[in-house]
């Protein structure tokens, strides 16, 4: 290594910082971000992350379409979002710079791999001149680092191809950023050992590149400041960093154990839900059966079969898959069997934006089936919340003998945050009773109900309870097929009433802030963090604003109507065109205002806060926020300009 003496450098202490790694989708940026996140979590920071990657596994190298990014927000205070703007941006090539620079704050740190800024790369990114040389980056603290050359030098002599050597560049970048933010290398060194222990060359090369990056920071004069973000004051306990889909898988396994059930997952691979299937497949020793079905319909109907068999039955998919499952969900509702249907929402309609986030499947969840076919719908608000929501969904499913729709989204599924690890023994058991053999002479009545309107869950194999269920309308009490008009009306009402009664199990709605005021922000799902932070910011400015975040979106909490009436205005931010708002307006006749965005990205705190300020000022113009003309891609912009000028 270099023999240069380590320079004296300043250390600044910050409350929080946001770092984004971006590069080609083959550059290992997700790994860099993940390692940085885990290290920050281990140091005791609160964290929130936002991985953002293209749908193509490897789009052509160096193109704008192939850019993959990972943003980490870490802090010494409570945080709920991955950060609106970026304090430090690492760009591995011109395309990554072009697509990400807009999010870097003025005066922010910009670290680029200067070796990638050659003619071809610049051209692919649409740069006519080299931005590193033409002065366009002068409002940032630019560090041009010859990462390719430095990495090659660090791994020189190792028995590897040039391509393999260059693949270590992400570790060099990591090392440099680790130094910049005063993070230890040990967790990443442990990771390298675990992951590449069987390939000593690769392990050695990645270690060398990581250390080279770190030492580069220490020694190079141009980078003269290091930043330190102290530990956050989290609730005491043992923590780990957890990703949404992992938390969801753990939650399902926990619910199965708490209810003494086998866990059956029927699923078909689909982004961004597949990792739930993959995670559960790794834990068969928890009595987990994972069935990768031939299609979404089979995944759903096998789940129905598993529920009939008496298992805790779950299916997991995303919007297009849920569309295919629709008929099966109807059968699940008709047969009144408990199960969980998970929708990790992504940008739609149709194939849409598979790797991007959206909340536009709420109508689908609540209404998306033929006939009058309601089901309870619960939504997770953050990665760690998935763990709790999975248990809650199962508790309701078995209490009411009804399938439950569980909504998350791509942002929650792939994002991570610190999770205070619970003790299994402290978790609430989920009680289930199955009827046993009836006393002599009694006919088993498969559709006789308890006070919650739940029918008995009679399991095949139980003598004396032989019965038939199915998709044809059933006579109440007996469960025999019935075409009687009055019975159909009765059963439709009954299935609706059963779902409505779930509200009896929903605790009073929490209000973050005063119980009345000028403005209530009402949110659901993954927008929780941005809404909570925006509301806190305005409360700190003395505004009379509060926040309600819904966990159950169907049915709604019983006290929600009264709460909303105590505020002059209600704002509902959603990553759709106003689906919850439509429902709220229909049920409560409240003139709720929307903040709506469908750009495949979560809300920034500023977007919500600005809208709140506008509403408080009485400015109610535009509920939807169409993208600015200047945000559109260049070819589209050119054509639109032509058209609008009559060209």
């Amino acid at each position: 290594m270099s023999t240069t003496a380590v320079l004296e450098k300043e250390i600044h202490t910050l409350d929080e910082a946001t770092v984004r790694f971006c590069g080609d989708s083959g550059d290992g940026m997700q790994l860099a971000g993940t390692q940085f996140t885990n290290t920050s979590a281990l140091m005791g920071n609160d964290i929130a992350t936002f991985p953002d990657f293209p749908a193509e596994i490897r789009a052509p190298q160096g193109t704008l379409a192939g850019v993959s990014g990972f943003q980490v927000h870490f802090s010494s205070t409570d945080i709920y979002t991955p950060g609106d703007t970026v304090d430090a941006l690492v760009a591995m090539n011109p395309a990554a710079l072009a697509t990400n620079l807009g999010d870097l704050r003025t005066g922010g740190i910009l670290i680029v791999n200067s070796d990638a800024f050659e003619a071809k790369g610049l051209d692919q990114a649409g740069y006519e001149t080299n931005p590193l040389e033409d002065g366009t980056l002068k409002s940032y603290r630019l560090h041009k680092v010859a990462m390719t050359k430095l990495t090659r030098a660090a791994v020189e002599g190792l028995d590897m191809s040039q391509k393999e050597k260059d693949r270590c560049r992400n570790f060099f970048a990591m090392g440099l950023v680790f130094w910049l933010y005063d993070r230890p290398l040990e967790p990443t060194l442990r990771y390298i050992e675990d992951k590449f222990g069987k390939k000593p060359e690769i392990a050695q090369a990645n270690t060398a590149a990581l250390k080279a990056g770190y030492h580069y920071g220490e020694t190079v004069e141009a980078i003269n400041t290091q930043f330190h973000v102290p530990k956050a004051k989290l609730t005491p306990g043992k923590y780990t960093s957890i990703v949404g889909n992992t938390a969801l898988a753990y939650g399902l396994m926990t619910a199965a154990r708490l209810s003494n059930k086998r866990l059956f997952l029927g699923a078909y691979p689909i982004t961004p839900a597949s990792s739930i299937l993959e995670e559960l497949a790794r834990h068969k020793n928890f009595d987990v059966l994972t069935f990768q079905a031939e299609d979404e319909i089979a995944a759903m109907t096998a789940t129905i079969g598993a529920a009939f068999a008496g298992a805790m039955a779950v299916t997991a998919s995303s919007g297009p898959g849920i569309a295919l499952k629709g008929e099966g969900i109807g059968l699940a509702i008709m047969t009144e069997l408990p199960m969980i249907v998970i929708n990790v929402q992504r940008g739609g309609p149709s194939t849409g934006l598979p790797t991007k986030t959206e909340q536009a499947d709420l109508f689908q969840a609540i209404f998306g089936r033929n006939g009058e076919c309601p089901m309870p719908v619960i939504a997770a608000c953050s990665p760690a919340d998935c763990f709790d929501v999975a248990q809650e969904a199962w508790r309701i499913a078995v209490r009411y003998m009804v399938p439950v729709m569980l909504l998350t989204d791509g942002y929650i599924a792939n994002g991570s945050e610190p999770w205070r690890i619970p003790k299994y023994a402290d978790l609430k058991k989920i009680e289930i009773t199955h009827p046993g053999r009836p006393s002599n002479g009694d006919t088993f009545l498969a559709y006789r109900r308890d006070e919650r309107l739940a029918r008995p869950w009679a399991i095949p194999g139980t003598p004396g309870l032989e019965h038939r269920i199915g998709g044809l309308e059933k006579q109440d009490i007996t469960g025999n097929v019935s075409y009687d008009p009055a019975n159909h009306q009765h059963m439709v009402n009954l299935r609706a009433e059963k779902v409505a009664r779930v509200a009896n199990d929903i605790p009073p709605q929490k209000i973050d802030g005063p119980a009345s005021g000028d403005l209530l922000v009402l949110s659901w799902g993954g927008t929780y963090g941005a809404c909570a932070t925006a509301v806190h910011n305005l409360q700190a400015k003395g505004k009379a604003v509060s926040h309600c975040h819904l966990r159950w979106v169907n049915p709604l909490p019983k006290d929600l109507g009264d709460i909303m009436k105590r505020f002059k205005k209600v704002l509902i931010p959603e990553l759709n065109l106003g689906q919850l708002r439509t429902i709220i307006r229909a049920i409560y006749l409240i003139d709720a205002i929307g903040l709506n965005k469908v750009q495949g990205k979560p809300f920034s705190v500023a977007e919500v806060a600005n809208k709140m300020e506008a509403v408080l000022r009485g400015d109610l113009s535009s509920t939807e926020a169409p993208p600015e003309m200047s945000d559109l891609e260049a070819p589209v912009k050119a054509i639109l300009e032509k058209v609008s000028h009559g060209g």
Partner: protein
Amino acid sequence: MSVDLPLPVLKPADFASDQDVRWCPGCGDYAILAQMKKIMPTLGIPREKIVFISGIGCSSRFPYYMNTYGMHSIHGRAPAVATGLKTVRPDLQVWVITGDGDGLSIGGNHLMHAIRRNLDLNIILFNNRIYGLTKGQYSPTSPLGKKTKSTPMGAIDNPLHPLSIAIGCEATFVARAIDTEIKHLGEVLKRAAEHQGVSFVEVYQNCNVFNDGAWAYAKERETKADTTLELVHGKPMIFGKNRDKGIRLNGMNPEVVELGKGISEDDLLFHDEKAAEPSLAYLLSRMRYEDGFPEPIGVFRAVERPRYDVMINDQVEQMTAERGKGDLDKLFASGDTWEVA
């Protein structure tokens, strides 16, 4: 200490549910239902351990008429429902009742995959070559040129042969029966029930309302001996009213030959339901009456292969043996952790 009591002796009537059977009078489904109830007491399986799953169509009303557990599911999905059920509860005997439209058209994908997984399911496909419940449209097994309500100028898609499909999907048990040949039908159903792994049975079933006589050639007393061939394992393939005709292999192709005139039984194809390769079974499944062949009935193929429902549970046991029963507290803390005081 509990004592295993002998199973109560059940009669076919014990398997009848209290529901009125609502198929059209004269429907072939009645015979299949009767044979099913008849074989049930002979299987030695308690009633509560038997489940019938069906999709949609006339045949799919079947579970309502059996006093066992049952589910009348949705169109084409019965094999998938049964897969979930059997995976969780391999101890149950699971039957799938389907038809030519339900199984081969809307549910073709599920049928294919349930068969190739070789779950221990008994799949009975009632083939009447028509959509009966929707009142007379052509089905995937209707012959070319078939005029129906939806094909007034004749069907223009090639029909599927259910057994060829099943064999192509690696079925381990493949058989055919005819609704009116009740003794033989009962025997085939019993063999299907006893097979470990997926059993696929095609039943020629007459829809006397929308497609009456579709199988007349195979059912009429005068013609059936010449138009069908009862397969017997290890025996030469002989048929005909006078048992004077046989099937011989000519190169890769079967041919009908007359016995005598220098052709003896030893020249004929001998049936081997346990052949390692499915070639013979496939060849038999392609023999059509319209091409001058008798159509084989009986068991085409019966081989043992590992079962999905067994293996998926074996994997649970194997991982449990290797790692011990899952401990959630350990799992939660299996990544990097830190303490906040």
